[in-house]
Protein backbone atom coordinates (compact mmCIF):
# COMPACT_ATOMS: atom_id res chain seq x y z
CA UNK A 1 0.00 0.00 0.00
CA UNK A 2 1.33 3.40 -0.91
CA UNK A 3 1.24 6.10 1.76
CA UNK A 4 0.38 9.75 1.20
CA UNK A 5 4.09 10.55 1.41
CA UNK A 6 4.85 7.84 -1.16
CA UNK A 7 2.38 9.40 -3.57
CA UNK A 8 4.06 12.76 -3.12
CA UNK A 9 7.65 11.53 -3.18
CA UNK A 10 7.20 9.40 -6.30
CA UNK A 11 4.61 11.62 -8.00
CA UNK A 12 6.71 12.35 -11.09
CA UNK A 13 7.46 8.71 -11.88
CA UNK A 14 3.91 7.58 -11.07
CA UNK A 15 2.82 9.96 -13.82
CA UNK A 16 4.61 7.71 -16.32
CA UNK A 17 1.74 5.89 -18.02
CA UNK A 18 3.30 2.42 -18.24
CA UNK A 19 4.27 2.57 -14.58
CA UNK A 20 1.63 4.31 -12.47
CA UNK A 21 0.71 3.56 -8.84
CA UNK A 22 0.75 -0.16 -9.54
CA UNK A 23 4.36 0.02 -10.67
CA UNK A 24 5.30 1.98 -7.57
CA UNK A 25 3.64 -0.62 -5.35
CA UNK A 26 5.68 -3.34 -7.03
CA UNK A 27 8.89 -1.43 -6.38
CA UNK A 28 7.90 -0.94 -2.76
CA UNK A 29 7.42 -4.70 -2.35
CA UNK A 30 10.76 -5.51 -4.01
CA UNK A 31 14.06 -6.55 -2.49
CA UNK A 32 17.20 -5.86 -4.53
CA UNK A 33 20.71 -6.97 -3.64
CA UNK A 34 23.52 -4.69 -4.80
CA UNK A 35 26.68 -6.78 -4.91
CA UNK A 36 29.64 -4.43 -4.60
CA UNK A 37 29.64 -0.80 -3.47
CA UNK A 38 32.23 0.54 -5.87
CA UNK A 39 31.61 2.75 -8.89
CA UNK A 40 28.71 0.66 -10.20
CA UNK A 41 27.17 -0.21 -6.85
CA UNK A 42 27.23 3.35 -5.45
CA UNK A 43 25.37 4.83 -8.40
CA UNK A 44 23.02 1.86 -8.70
CA UNK A 45 22.05 1.88 -5.03
CA UNK A 46 21.54 5.65 -5.10
CA UNK A 47 18.94 5.35 -7.85
CA UNK A 48 17.35 2.21 -6.44
CA UNK A 49 16.89 4.13 -3.20
CA UNK A 50 15.44 7.30 -4.64
CA UNK A 51 13.11 5.36 -6.94
CA UNK A 52 11.57 3.60 -3.95
CA UNK A 53 12.74 -0.02 -3.95
CA UNK A 54 11.31 -1.27 -0.63
CA UNK A 55 14.40 -3.14 0.55
CA UNK A 56 17.95 -2.68 -0.72
CA UNK A 57 20.73 -4.91 0.57
CA UNK A 58 24.26 -3.61 0.10
CA UNK A 59 27.10 -6.10 0.27
CA UNK A 60 30.82 -5.41 0.10
CA UNK A 61 33.79 -6.59 2.16
CA UNK A 62 36.13 -3.71 1.31
CA UNK A 63 36.89 -0.46 3.08
CA UNK A 64 36.85 3.00 1.53
CA UNK A 65 40.18 4.23 0.15
CA UNK A 66 41.23 7.62 -1.22
CA UNK A 67 41.69 6.11 -4.70
CA UNK A 68 37.98 5.15 -4.74
CA UNK A 69 36.70 8.70 -4.58
CA UNK A 70 36.93 9.50 -8.30
CA UNK A 71 33.97 7.22 -8.97
CA UNK A 72 32.39 5.80 -5.80
CA UNK A 73 30.05 8.68 -5.17
CA UNK A 74 28.51 7.55 -1.88
CA UNK A 75 31.87 7.57 -0.10
CA UNK A 76 33.38 10.85 1.12
CA UNK A 77 36.83 11.78 2.46
CA UNK A 78 35.57 11.40 6.03
CA UNK A 79 34.61 7.76 5.28
CA UNK A 80 38.10 6.55 4.38
CA UNK A 81 38.77 3.38 6.33
CA UNK A 82 35.10 2.57 6.88
CA UNK A 83 33.34 -0.46 5.39
CA UNK A 84 31.88 0.50 2.01
CA UNK A 85 28.44 -0.98 2.64
CA UNK A 86 28.18 0.88 5.98
CA UNK A 87 29.32 4.16 4.44
CA UNK A 88 26.85 3.83 1.56
CA UNK A 89 23.92 2.76 3.76
CA UNK A 90 24.34 5.83 5.97
CA UNK A 91 23.93 8.20 3.00
CA UNK A 92 21.05 6.23 1.49
CA UNK A 93 19.12 6.21 4.78
CA UNK A 94 19.24 10.01 4.76
CA UNK A 95 18.09 10.12 1.14
CA UNK A 96 15.04 7.91 1.71
CA UNK A 97 14.07 6.93 5.24
CA UNK A 98 10.90 5.21 4.05
CA UNK A 99 12.75 2.19 2.63
CA UNK A 100 14.86 -0.47 4.31
CA UNK A 101 18.60 -0.42 3.58
CA UNK A 102 20.63 -3.34 4.91
CA UNK A 103 24.43 -3.10 4.85
CA UNK A 104 26.38 -6.37 4.88
CA UNK A 105 30.15 -6.42 5.33
CA UNK A 106 30.99 -9.78 3.87
CA UNK A 107 32.98 -11.33 1.04
CA UNK A 108 30.80 -13.16 -1.46
CA UNK A 109 32.01 -16.73 -1.88
CA UNK A 110 30.80 -19.95 -3.47
CA UNK A 111 29.65 -21.06 -0.01
CA UNK A 112 27.57 -18.05 0.98
CA UNK A 113 26.37 -16.56 -2.34
CA UNK A 114 23.07 -18.40 -2.56
CA UNK A 115 22.22 -17.62 1.06
CA UNK A 116 22.96 -13.92 0.51
CA UNK A 117 20.75 -13.54 -2.57
CA UNK A 118 17.97 -16.07 -1.99
CA UNK A 119 15.40 -13.57 -0.64
CA UNK A 120 16.01 -11.05 -3.43
CA UNK A 121 13.86 -10.29 -6.45
CA UNK A 122 16.95 -9.41 -8.42
CA UNK A 123 20.69 -8.86 -8.07
CA UNK A 124 22.66 -5.91 -9.43
CA UNK A 125 26.22 -6.74 -10.47
CA UNK A 126 28.45 -4.07 -8.95
CA UNK A 127 31.56 -6.23 -8.77
CA UNK A 128 35.05 -5.30 -9.92
CA UNK A 129 36.42 -8.75 -10.68
CA UNK A 130 35.68 -11.82 -12.78
CA UNK A 131 35.63 -14.39 -10.00
CA UNK A 132 32.82 -12.93 -7.92
CA UNK A 133 30.76 -12.08 -10.99
CA UNK A 134 30.83 -15.73 -11.98
CA UNK A 135 29.98 -16.83 -8.42
CA UNK A 136 26.95 -14.51 -8.50
CA UNK A 137 26.00 -15.64 -11.99
CA UNK A 138 26.02 -19.26 -10.83
CA UNK A 139 24.08 -18.46 -7.64
CA UNK A 140 21.45 -16.45 -9.53
CA UNK A 141 20.95 -19.24 -12.07
CA UNK A 142 20.66 -21.78 -9.25
CA UNK A 143 18.11 -19.65 -7.36
CA UNK A 144 16.27 -18.48 -10.48
CA UNK A 145 16.90 -14.82 -9.65
CA UNK A 146 17.43 -12.20 -12.39
CA UNK A 147 20.98 -10.86 -12.54
CA UNK A 148 21.69 -7.50 -14.14
CA UNK A 149 25.31 -7.50 -15.24
CA UNK A 150 27.35 -4.35 -15.72
CA UNK A 151 31.05 -3.85 -16.33
CA UNK A 152 33.34 -0.94 -17.17
CA UNK A 153 36.83 -0.21 -18.45
CA UNK A 154 38.07 3.34 -18.95
CA UNK A 155 35.21 5.02 -20.80
CA UNK A 156 33.71 1.73 -22.02
CA UNK A 157 30.84 -0.13 -20.47
CA UNK A 158 28.54 -3.08 -20.97
CA UNK A 159 25.14 -4.17 -19.65
CA UNK A 160 22.96 -7.24 -20.06
CA UNK A 161 20.01 -8.66 -18.15
CA UNK A 162 20.12 -12.36 -17.34
CA UNK A 163 16.87 -14.20 -16.67
CA UNK A 164 17.85 -17.69 -15.48
CA UNK A 165 16.62 -20.49 -17.71
CA UNK A 166 15.40 -18.06 -20.36
CA UNK A 167 18.41 -16.05 -21.51
CA UNK A 168 22.14 -16.63 -21.93
CA UNK A 169 24.09 -16.31 -18.67
CA UNK A 170 27.63 -14.98 -18.24
CA UNK A 171 29.07 -18.47 -18.53
CA UNK A 172 27.33 -19.00 -21.88
CA UNK A 173 29.63 -16.29 -23.22
CA UNK A 174 32.69 -16.96 -21.05
CA UNK A 175 32.75 -20.65 -20.10
CA UNK A 176 36.21 -20.27 -18.56
CA UNK A 177 36.65 -17.76 -15.74
CA UNK A 178 39.40 -15.29 -16.65
CA UNK A 179 42.20 -14.65 -14.18
CA UNK A 180 42.06 -11.66 -11.85
CA UNK A 181 43.36 -8.50 -13.47
CA UNK A 182 45.41 -5.67 -12.00
CA UNK A 183 43.88 -2.22 -11.49
CA UNK A 184 41.98 -1.07 -14.55
CA UNK A 185 41.49 2.48 -15.80
CA UNK A 186 38.05 3.87 -14.92
CA UNK A 187 36.53 7.33 -15.24
CA UNK A 188 33.75 7.87 -12.71
CA UNK A 189 31.23 8.68 -15.41
CA UNK A 190 31.49 5.21 -16.98
CA UNK A 191 30.23 3.19 -13.99
CA UNK A 192 27.67 5.93 -13.27
CA UNK A 193 26.19 5.59 -16.73
CA UNK A 194 26.27 1.79 -16.72
CA UNK A 195 24.71 1.67 -13.23
CA UNK A 196 21.85 3.91 -14.32
CA UNK A 197 21.20 1.58 -17.23
CA UNK A 198 21.21 -1.35 -14.79
CA UNK A 199 18.68 0.38 -12.55
CA UNK A 200 16.53 1.24 -15.58
CA UNK A 201 16.44 -2.48 -16.32
CA UNK A 202 15.62 -3.23 -12.68
CA UNK A 203 12.69 -0.79 -12.61
CA UNK A 204 11.16 -2.24 -15.79
CA UNK A 205 11.70 -5.81 -14.69
CA UNK A 206 10.20 -5.29 -11.23
CA UNK A 207 7.29 -3.12 -12.36
CA UNK A 208 6.59 -5.25 -15.44
CA UNK A 209 6.75 -2.91 -18.40
CA UNK A 210 8.99 -2.10 -21.35
CA UNK A 211 11.51 -4.38 -23.02
CA UNK A 212 14.74 -5.62 -21.47
CA UNK A 213 18.36 -6.10 -22.47
CA UNK A 214 17.89 -9.86 -22.56
CA UNK A 215 19.76 -12.00 -25.08
CA UNK A 216 21.93 -9.06 -26.01
CA UNK A 217 24.79 -7.05 -24.61
CA UNK A 218 24.65 -3.28 -24.77
CA UNK A 219 28.07 -1.69 -25.23
CA UNK A 220 28.79 1.95 -24.47
CA UNK A 221 31.85 3.60 -25.99
CA UNK A 222 32.47 6.90 -24.23
CA UNK A 223 35.29 7.82 -26.60
CA UNK A 224 32.92 8.02 -29.54
CA UNK A 225 29.58 8.20 -27.69
CA UNK A 226 28.36 5.13 -29.55
CA UNK A 227 25.90 2.62 -28.15
CA UNK A 228 26.02 -0.76 -29.91
CA UNK A 229 24.53 -4.22 -29.29
CA UNK A 230 25.72 -7.80 -29.65
CA UNK A 231 23.24 -10.61 -29.85
CA UNK A 232 23.92 -13.29 -27.21
CA UNK A 233 22.91 -16.89 -27.76
CA UNK A 234 22.25 -19.43 -25.02
CA UNK A 235 24.94 -22.13 -24.98
CA UNK A 236 23.30 -25.53 -24.53
CA UNK A 237 26.65 -26.84 -23.22
CA UNK A 238 27.04 -24.00 -20.74
CA UNK A 239 28.58 -25.32 -17.52
CA UNK A 240 26.15 -23.21 -15.45
CA UNK A 241 22.80 -23.08 -17.25
CA UNK A 242 23.20 -25.48 -20.16
CA UNK A 243 21.24 -28.35 -18.65
CA UNK A 244 18.31 -26.27 -17.50
CA UNK A 245 15.00 -26.36 -19.32
CA UNK A 246 14.56 -23.40 -21.66
Amino acid at each position, binding site marked *: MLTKDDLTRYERQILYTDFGENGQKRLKQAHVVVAGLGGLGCSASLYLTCTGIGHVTLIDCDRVELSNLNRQILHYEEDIGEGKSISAARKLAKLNSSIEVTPVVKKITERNAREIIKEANLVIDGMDNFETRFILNRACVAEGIPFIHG*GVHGLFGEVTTILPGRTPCLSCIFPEIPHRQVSLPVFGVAPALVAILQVTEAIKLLAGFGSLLTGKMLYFNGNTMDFTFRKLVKNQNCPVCGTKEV
Partner: protein
Amino acid sequence: MSIQVKLHPILQSLVGGQEVVEVTGHTTGECLENLENRFPVIKQLIRDKQGQLRPYCQILVNSESVYPKELTTPVEDGDQIDIVVFVTGG
Protein backbone atom coordinates in the same frame (compact mmCIF):
# COMPACT_ATOMS: atom_id res chain seq x y z
CA MET B 1 36.35 -16.11 -48.99
CA SER B 2 35.24 -12.99 -47.16
CA ILE B 3 34.57 -13.03 -43.44
CA GLN B 4 33.49 -10.06 -41.36
CA VAL B 5 35.14 -9.58 -37.99
CA LYS B 6 33.10 -7.41 -35.66
CA LEU B 7 35.30 -5.76 -33.07
CA HIS B 8 34.48 -5.04 -29.44
CA PRO B 9 34.46 -1.25 -28.75
CA ILE B 10 37.78 -1.51 -26.87
CA LEU B 11 39.39 -3.02 -29.97
CA GLN B 12 37.72 -0.52 -32.29
CA SER B 13 39.68 2.24 -30.59
CA LEU B 14 42.89 0.47 -31.69
CA VAL B 15 41.99 0.41 -35.38
CA GLY B 16 40.82 3.95 -35.88
CA GLY B 17 37.23 3.39 -34.89
CA GLN B 18 36.36 0.64 -37.38
CA GLU B 19 33.64 -1.67 -36.09
CA VAL B 20 33.84 -4.28 -38.85
CA VAL B 21 36.95 -5.51 -40.66
CA GLU B 22 36.81 -7.80 -43.70
CA VAL B 23 39.31 -10.67 -43.49
CA THR B 24 40.03 -13.95 -45.25
CA GLY B 25 40.59 -17.43 -43.83
CA HIS B 26 39.12 -20.90 -43.56
CA THR B 27 39.12 -21.06 -39.77
CA THR B 28 38.61 -18.57 -36.96
CA GLY B 29 42.34 -18.80 -36.22
CA GLU B 30 43.31 -17.93 -39.81
CA CYS B 31 40.89 -15.02 -39.81
CA LEU B 32 42.30 -13.67 -36.56
CA GLU B 33 45.86 -13.99 -37.90
CA ASN B 34 44.81 -12.06 -40.98
CA LEU B 35 43.35 -9.36 -38.74
CA GLU B 36 46.43 -9.28 -36.47
CA ASN B 37 48.79 -8.97 -39.44
CA ARG B 38 46.95 -5.83 -40.49
CA PHE B 39 46.55 -4.47 -36.96
CA PRO B 40 49.41 -5.87 -34.81
CA VAL B 41 48.24 -3.86 -31.80
CA ILE B 42 45.17 -6.09 -31.55
CA LYS B 43 47.36 -9.16 -31.07
CA GLN B 44 48.90 -7.65 -27.94
CA LEU B 45 45.48 -7.25 -26.38
CA ILE B 46 43.83 -10.54 -27.32
CA ARG B 47 46.74 -13.03 -27.12
CA ASP B 48 49.10 -14.01 -24.33
CA LYS B 49 52.86 -14.55 -24.77
CA GLN B 50 52.25 -18.13 -25.86
CA GLY B 51 49.88 -16.96 -28.60
CA GLN B 52 46.80 -18.29 -26.83
CA LEU B 53 43.63 -16.24 -26.74
CA ARG B 54 43.39 -14.41 -23.44
CA PRO B 55 40.58 -15.74 -21.22
CA TYR B 56 38.80 -12.40 -21.11
CA CYS B 57 38.35 -12.62 -24.90
CA GLN B 58 35.83 -14.90 -26.52
CA ILE B 59 35.08 -15.67 -30.13
CA LEU B 60 31.56 -15.91 -31.46
CA VAL B 61 30.70 -17.13 -34.95
CA ASN B 62 27.33 -15.87 -36.11
CA SER B 63 26.60 -14.90 -32.48
CA GLU B 64 27.34 -18.37 -31.04
CA SER B 65 30.31 -19.13 -28.79
CA VAL B 66 32.83 -21.51 -30.37
CA TYR B 67 34.52 -22.31 -27.06
CA PRO B 68 36.74 -24.32 -26.70
CA LYS B 69 37.56 -24.24 -30.44
CA GLU B 70 38.08 -20.49 -30.60
CA LEU B 71 40.97 -20.75 -33.05
CA THR B 72 40.05 -23.89 -35.02
CA THR B 73 36.40 -23.48 -35.94
CA PRO B 74 35.80 -23.59 -39.71
CA VAL B 75 34.16 -20.52 -41.21
CA GLU B 76 32.41 -19.99 -44.53
CA ASP B 77 31.95 -17.08 -46.87
CA GLY B 78 29.56 -14.58 -45.29
CA ASP B 79 30.10 -15.70 -41.69
CA GLN B 80 30.59 -13.11 -38.99
CA ILE B 81 33.17 -13.45 -36.25
CA ASP B 82 32.71 -11.40 -33.08
CA ILE B 83 35.64 -10.74 -30.77
CA VAL B 84 34.11 -10.13 -27.35
CA VAL B 85 36.13 -8.61 -24.53
CA PHE B 86 34.80 -8.99 -20.99
CA VAL B 87 35.14 -5.64 -19.27
CA THR B 88 35.53 -6.34 -15.60
CA GLY B 89 35.85 -3.01 -13.84
CA GLY B 90 33.23 -1.75 -11.44
